[in-house]
């Protein structure tokens, strides 16, 4: 099971991830839990899910887009973005779009192939929780957020690019 961290510490994971191959038939077995639904299941069976789960979030794979979620964001406490492999960079842009363009204020979680050396940039793109790949050392991973003290580019941490901060 993946260890979950935010940018400062290990945190408990309250969400149950529903795999993308699942259908609404799994809902009753997980009744009462907080569920992270794959995008397609959320879009097709949101009502059935709402009747069974105590809370609903959505996860997207890296090839999926936010188009169908854009007007539903305010009802979602969490959106998880999957990294099928750490070097697939599409979710960085998805997170930035969520945070910056769409003003999403809920939790953005990185799931899948989430490794220490990508954490710093993930945070800068708007991710705030990280379900680490099982072989990752969480204490070592927490150091990654301190690799850089500043950046040239505007980030989710500081929306002002350096050229507007330089005295």
């Amino acid at each position, binding site marked *: 099971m993946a260890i979950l961290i935010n940018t400062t510490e290990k945190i408990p994971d309250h969400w149950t991830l529903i795999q993308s191959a699942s259908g609404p038939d799994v809902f009753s077995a997980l009744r009462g839990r907080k569920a992270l639904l794959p995008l397609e299941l959320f879009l097709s069976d949101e009502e059935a899910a709402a009747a069974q789960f105590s809370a609903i979030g959505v996860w997207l794979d890296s090839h999926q887009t936010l188009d169908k979620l854009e007007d539903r964001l305010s009802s979602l406490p969490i959106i998880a973005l999957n990294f099928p492999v750490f070097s697939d960079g599409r979710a*960085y842009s998805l997170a930035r779009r969520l945070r910056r363009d769409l003003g999403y204020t809920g939790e953005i979680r990185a799931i899948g192939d989430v490794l220490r050396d990508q954490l710093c940039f993930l945070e800068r793109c708007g991710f705030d929780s990280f379900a680490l790949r099982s072989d990752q050392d969480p204490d070592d991973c927490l150091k990654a957020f301190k690799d850089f003290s500043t950046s*040239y580019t505007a980030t989710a941490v500081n929306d002002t690019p350096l050229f507007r901060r330089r005295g």
Partner: protein
Amino acid sequence: MYRYDGYDATMLEERVAQFRDQTNRYLEGKLSDAEFLPLRLQNGLYVQRLAPMLRIAVPYGMLSSRQLRKLAFISSHYDKGYGHFTTRQNIQFNWPALEDVPELLAHLAEVEMHAIQTSGNCIRNTTTDQFAGVAIDEIEDSRPYCEIIRQWSTFHPEFAYLPRKFKIAVCGTQEDHAATQVHDIGVYLRKNDNGETGFQILAGGGLGRTPVIGQVVFDFIHRHDLLTALEAILRVYNREGRRDNKYKARIKILVRETGLDAFREKVQREWEQLRGGSLTLTDAEIERCKSYFQAPAYKPLEASPESLRAALAQDVLFASWYSNNVTAHKRSGYAAVAISFKKTGYAPGDVTEEQLNALADLADRFSFGEVRVTHAQNVILADVEESELYNLYQQLADDSLEASNLNKLNDIICCPGGDFCALANAKSIPIAEAIQRQFDDRELLADIGEVSLNISGCMNACGHHHVGNIGVLGVDKKGEEFYQVSIGGSSKREAKLGKILGPSFAQSEIPAVVADLITVYREQRLDHEKFIDTVDRIGVDPFKKRVYEKEQ
């Protein structure tokens, strides 16, 4: 040139520490090869045929004498006493040991240098015309904008894992020595009708196995919108560029498969999100960056002084060097001088420790302590007093750097090829040398005039063979090295891709093939017509006929 402030210096120190930690974890077995790969690449480190290769960034080609001396030190302490200038104005070393690289990077940081994002699937070093700031045909100095792009693209958190590498060139001159149109993004400085500076932005150019000339995405944007426009293009590319096939992952394929109009629309939609936001440039930032590229302390000097005219009249070799390697300067009494690194018997672009030190001394003595590396793998002293040209020439002769072949047939652009590179299908350096040996007569070369001859050892096209007036590409045929020849390419304003002559040739045939091409040109040319213009006028067929008739 640009100097680091506390922010730049801190980030660079932190980067060196980060990579030191990553390298240690790799050597301890805590990072797999696959996980370490993008980390080392984004710090310039390849694993090559013989040893690691480290590519060091030279932002838009500018080097100070202090940096040159540091590179000389690195070449002797971590390499075998030489380095290699690349076609993207960088310098690479072929022999450093992996475990030494963090320490080597710390040395570079002392002189505000690094190897950040010189490889890997990220935004690479921004390049420009080597005559920026001194060219007589310049719209505006491109370097402040290159620096603005450098800072935006360095450690950009969203674009560190792009589908493929991403190269940007910026050009502020009319002629264009930066091969701007064969970059993933090409930026041309422009003035609008009100005389305001802005940019035309091209996307989707590139070489490699699918050579394409870039197409206009923004015809004119205001100077404040430079970064928002670039970010919009990168955002579309990062989300939609193909990741299923490495050979179809460059932005040129995305533009082609999406269609230019649809691609423009997608970019436009992203741009609307970004425009007017915090990424919008300010005049204060543009002025701050311009302040680093102010004209040096030029003296009021007369053009073409008597001493220069006298030296030209009495020394025919100097006169030949002057006519080939010296370029007009926008300031009266000054000239821009190209130092050729294309001497027969030496790999094109190779530079020794002694030469790096010599360049530093020449820069200090003749050109305000700075040099520029060119896209054609030569070096420019941009601000030389015309009255000092003869002294400079004599010093170059003492340093064995007086080759007077700029833009001539033997000023060959060439990748490291199969002698060094793990990707190559064929050697390229021995081909360059064989052609240089065939054409070593100064008067013949002068008669042939301007020709670009570019050699790549494989279809990745690091030697830019598609845009050579003559292009040579190494191919593998059943384990043997063969060479495909094309003509008619150009990387200038009227950028064109060369046309392949026909079946490929054995290595030993190439000098004779080039000789045939030159013979046809000399027979057919009109007065003062350059090789490329003759090819344009008469087409490929007369050349093809000559080359293959002889074969049969």
